[in-house]
């Protein structure tokens, strides 16, 4: 055995692997060279002709249509569901864990797992056609409480956004620290649609949360960020019903947007009851602003409640769990005779508890709208 052996072995292996890799690349470019296909969205509302070969999710986003996806196409979040109306083959094993029996029957599929190999017809919520990707800069970061920050983004391109108060965007942050990939999470916009060159988001710090850690520890003023939106069907329904709003912490974002939007549009004929739950005074924010709004807009009633106030808080407002306060107001303060709708935003536990209280007080579930976030 001479020294040459030690050099030839890695060399031969590299050459062999290299040539095999080359063969794979060549075969890939020859075989995966698909012609153009037509994508028909929502029965001809939009028609795209584009090159096949990639997943539906990637193809659509390259054409400016953004299906919500948290994992970016790895079949690990199950968010990118679309209804397929043409034949694309059987459901793949990778999709199975995310589809209910009903969805399987309806031919709901994960857009990230379907490869574009023929013409395809699909149905998506109409609003997704208006979803765009925005480049923005961080204009300011405001500390609202010890764990909630408000970030205000100035839009660069496109430089304005058209959305309904209450909708959300997907904020995308770059790889940072130990996190090797882009992360995206949904945040409701707390700004009003009239301020269409800006977007404000409320981000509560979650220990270990990938995006919240970035926003709280790494994000700097003037840095560039990317988001897609607007998404969601949590917005004001066009009725005359009175509104019961319940949201604590950063869940205030969509409610604030809706209420200020109503003020700007001079919608004063609907009573709004906003129950804002917090633990102690250090969790409260926007108190003065909302109280002031209550004076400018007599139809708006702001009821902050603390579940666990400190003695030093000098709190003279409502005390107790927000669901108990809500129950009390529904029984004794809020008029029984009027039509009511409820708008809730918060954790799944809080939403479920609140829905129970509302149901018990005669609000049917169809009139309760909510944004659940974990």
């Amino acid at each position: 055995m001479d020294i040459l052996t030690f050099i030839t072995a890695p060399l031969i292996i590299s050459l062999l692997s290299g040539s095999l890799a080359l063969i794979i690349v060549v075969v890939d470019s020859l075989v995966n060279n698909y012609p153009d296909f037509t994508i028909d969205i929502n029965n001809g509302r939009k028609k795209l002709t584009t090159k096949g070969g990639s997943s539906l999710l990637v193809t659509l986003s390259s054409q400016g249509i953004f299906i919500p996806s948290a994992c970016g196409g790895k079949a690990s979040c199950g968010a990118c569901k679309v209804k397929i109306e043409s034949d694309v083959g059987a459901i793949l094993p990778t999709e199975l864990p995310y589809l209910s029996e009903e969805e399987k029957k309806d031919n709901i599929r994960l857009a990230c797992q379907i490869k574009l190999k023929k013409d395809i017809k699909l149905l998506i919520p109409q609003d997704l056609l208006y979803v765009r990707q925005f480049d923005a800069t961080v204009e300011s970061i405001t500390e609202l409480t010890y764990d909630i920050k408000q970030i205000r983004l100035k839009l660069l391109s496109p430089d304005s956004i058209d959305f309904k108060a209450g909708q959300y965007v997907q904020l995308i942050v770059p790889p940072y620290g130990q996190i090797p990939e882009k992360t995206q999470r949904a945040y409701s916009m707390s700004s009003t649609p009239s301020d269409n060159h800006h977007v404000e988001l409320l981000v509560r710090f979650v220990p270990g949360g990938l995006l919240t850690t970035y926003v709280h520890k790494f994000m700097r003023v003037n840095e560039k960020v990317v988001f897609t939106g607007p998404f969601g069907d949590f917005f004001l329904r066009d009725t005359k019903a009175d509104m019961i709003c319940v949201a604590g912490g950063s869940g205030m974002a969509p409610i604030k947007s809706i209420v200020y939007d109503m003020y700007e549009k001079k919608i004063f004929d609907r009573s709004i009851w906003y129950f804002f739950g917090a633990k102690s005074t250090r969790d409260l924010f926007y108190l003065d602003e909302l109280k002031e709004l209550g004076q400018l807009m007599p139809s708006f009633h702001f009821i902050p409640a603390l579940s666990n106030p400190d003695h030093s808080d000098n709190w003279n407002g409502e005390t107790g769990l927000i669901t108990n306060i809500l129950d009390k107001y529904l029984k004794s303060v809020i008029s029984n005779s009027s039509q009511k709708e409820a708008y809730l935003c918060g954790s799944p536990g809080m939403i479920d508890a609140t829905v129970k209280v509302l149901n018990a007080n005669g609000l049917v579930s169809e009139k309760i709208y909510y944004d659940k976030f974990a």
Partner: protein
Amino acid sequence: MRPDVTPLILFIASIFTSNILLSNFLGMCSFISVSKDFKSSNGLGLAVTLTLTVTTALNWLVYKYLIIPLGLEYLTYIVFIIVIAAVVQVLEMLIERFSSNLYMALGIFLPLITVNCAIFGVALFMQLRNYDFIQSVFFGAGSGLGWWLAIVTLAAIRKKVDAAPVPPALKGPGITLITIGFMAMAFIGFSGMISVQ
């Protein structure tokens, strides 16, 4: 020295009398886990047969025209594995493009075949036993068919066993391993009939 077995006999032998699975116990992991379901077993059997035929032929060429002339016998294992991995990749792309139905049937099993030891085992046997090219191709295809036969047989038996009153402690892997033992005995019973080396 090349063994004196006609390719056709070798082909038959590697299906029945020297079944790669039941006489050499190679490729057991997917054999046991996938045989739960008859349809998947069939798909995997087909994929293994395809891959085995192609990789055995390719590995023979690589061994004869690359490894031996360059005196690289000590790299045989690594080279075989790389070739198998590459073949599976190419095969997957071709099948996906040209036969959607087959691609759907094979599903997730095709990429998993890269690490199926039956494939690697057959390549090594072919080299150890000094088969020539034609013999190797028939040996590869036969071994694949043998593996396919074994897995669908086991899948069918397991379907029967599911409905049988198996003692609770033996349910699942226990009874499966016993079943495989019986199957192996049946196959090995013929092993003296044809000499493969």
